[in-house]
């Protein structure tokens, strides 16, 4: 997926992209990068709090991986089909600012601190629209379980019933993932690398992997919540449908990276509170209206 993003970006920018690793157009580049990071020295800065500094990447990785466990890829491809899966996902997502704050504070670096504070601001203010927009789906399907959410989309995908909710979820998801144009916490020309500044070697690799897993998880979540998950015409297996739709979402999420510069933190927060929050509330109202209509 990293390879896909880099290739897509290169296409947008009239470049070639990764080329040498692997047989086909550098498809093994992410693995090569990861192996390189594995062999690099782990540097712990002297003023840093060693325990928490090393804990943070692992913590982040655990959070992202446990997100994956809750999201169903097909009717049977689900690790933990919980009754309250959506609630748990929201809970896990709102834990990640904590991990970032640990990383930022433990690094004992001014840039890390500023980046961490920015990340904290951003995530807390965007987690609310994110959860509110999923609430609309919950109201429509009448269940917190993701499998039954998908099953209740037999007739209509929820993106048709809830275009607003989908847009809000998409934007808030971008912000939650710190992706362009919401990559303020790691704006390299302002705060070097934000809260990741002091990390090196495999710790950095873990953080990046965690970020990409989270990226993937949110894309699947979008598919499951709004695009009808694995539902699709028969000859194609359900799993393929999920992956196909996820790829589409992933592409959509990558395109802004090539097309937009980054926002400023105050502009971003203003956008979050004055647009996304009211819109998600409006979406909730719409879904409440829609429920009796559909019955």
């Amino acid at each position, binding site marked *: 997926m990293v390879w896909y993003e880099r290739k897509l970006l290169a296409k947008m920018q009239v*470049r070639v992209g990764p080329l040498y690793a692997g047989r086909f157009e550098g498809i093994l580049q992410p693995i090569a990068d990861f192996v390189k990071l594995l062999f690099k020295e782990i540097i712990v800065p002297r003023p840093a709090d060693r325990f928490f500094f090393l804990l943070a990447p692992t913590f982040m990785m655990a959070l992202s991986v446990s997100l994956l466990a809750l999201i169903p890829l097909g009717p049977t491809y689900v690790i933990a089909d919980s009754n309250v899966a959506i609630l748990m996902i929201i809970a896990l997502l709102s834990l990640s600012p904590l991990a970032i704050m640990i990383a930022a504070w433990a690094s004992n670096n001014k840039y890390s601190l500023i980046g961490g504070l920015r990340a904290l601001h951003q995530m807390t203010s965007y987690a609310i629209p994110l959860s509110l927009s999923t609430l609309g789906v919950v109201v429509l399907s009448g269940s917190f379980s993701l499998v039954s959410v998908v099953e209740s989309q037999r007739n209509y995908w929820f993106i048709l019933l809830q275009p607003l909710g989908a847009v809000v979820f998409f934007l808030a998801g971008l912000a939650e993932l710190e992706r362009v144009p919401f990559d303020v916490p790691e704006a390299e020309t302002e705060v070097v690398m934000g809260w990741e500044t002091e990390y090196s070697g495999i710790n950095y690799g873990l953080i990046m992997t965690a970020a990409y897993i989270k990226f993937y998880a949110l894309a699947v979540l979008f598919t499951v919540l709004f695009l009808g998950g694995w539902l699709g015409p028969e000859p194609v297996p359900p799993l393929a449908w999920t992956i196909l739709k996820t790829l589409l979402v992933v592409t959509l999420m990558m395109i802004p990276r090539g097309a937009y510069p980054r926002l400023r933190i105050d502009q971003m927060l203003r956008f979050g509170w004055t647009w996304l929050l009211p819109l998600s509330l409006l979406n909730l109202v719409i879904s409440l209206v829609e429920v009796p209509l559909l019955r």
Partner: protein
Amino acid sequence: MTLRYPESKLELPSGYRYPLAGYKGRHILDMQKCTGCSICELTCRNITGAIKMVPVEGLFLRNKKLIFPQIDYGFCVFCGFCVDACVFCALTMSSQYELSTYDKRLLIYEPRLLTSTAPSGSARFVVTKGRAYHRETLGTHARSRKTE
């Protein structure tokens, strides 16, 4: 826009010689024309000091002192003022730009090496089936230096 460097290379115009436009790459010395007047050395002295006149054994009718320029590409900035200064058109420039080596001593080009128009530089790329690897060819470079 992007050139896949070792596989495809920039197409360059021919080298620079004084009144004609061209690429300012590695120098080429015509030992038959050079008279050992040292103007290139004098010119370069206040720019980078890359050129030094060194004695060469052999029979050169025009060069009674038997001294020829030797260029250290570790210093050269490829401004080409030595080419402008050369009254006898003995120094010209070629369009070679791949001069990198693994040893900075190899950046010093003796007069005889400067006469050759063949590509130089010891760091080489070997292209196999669309992929390129760089290979150290220090040995062959040194050998070619000895034979020439």
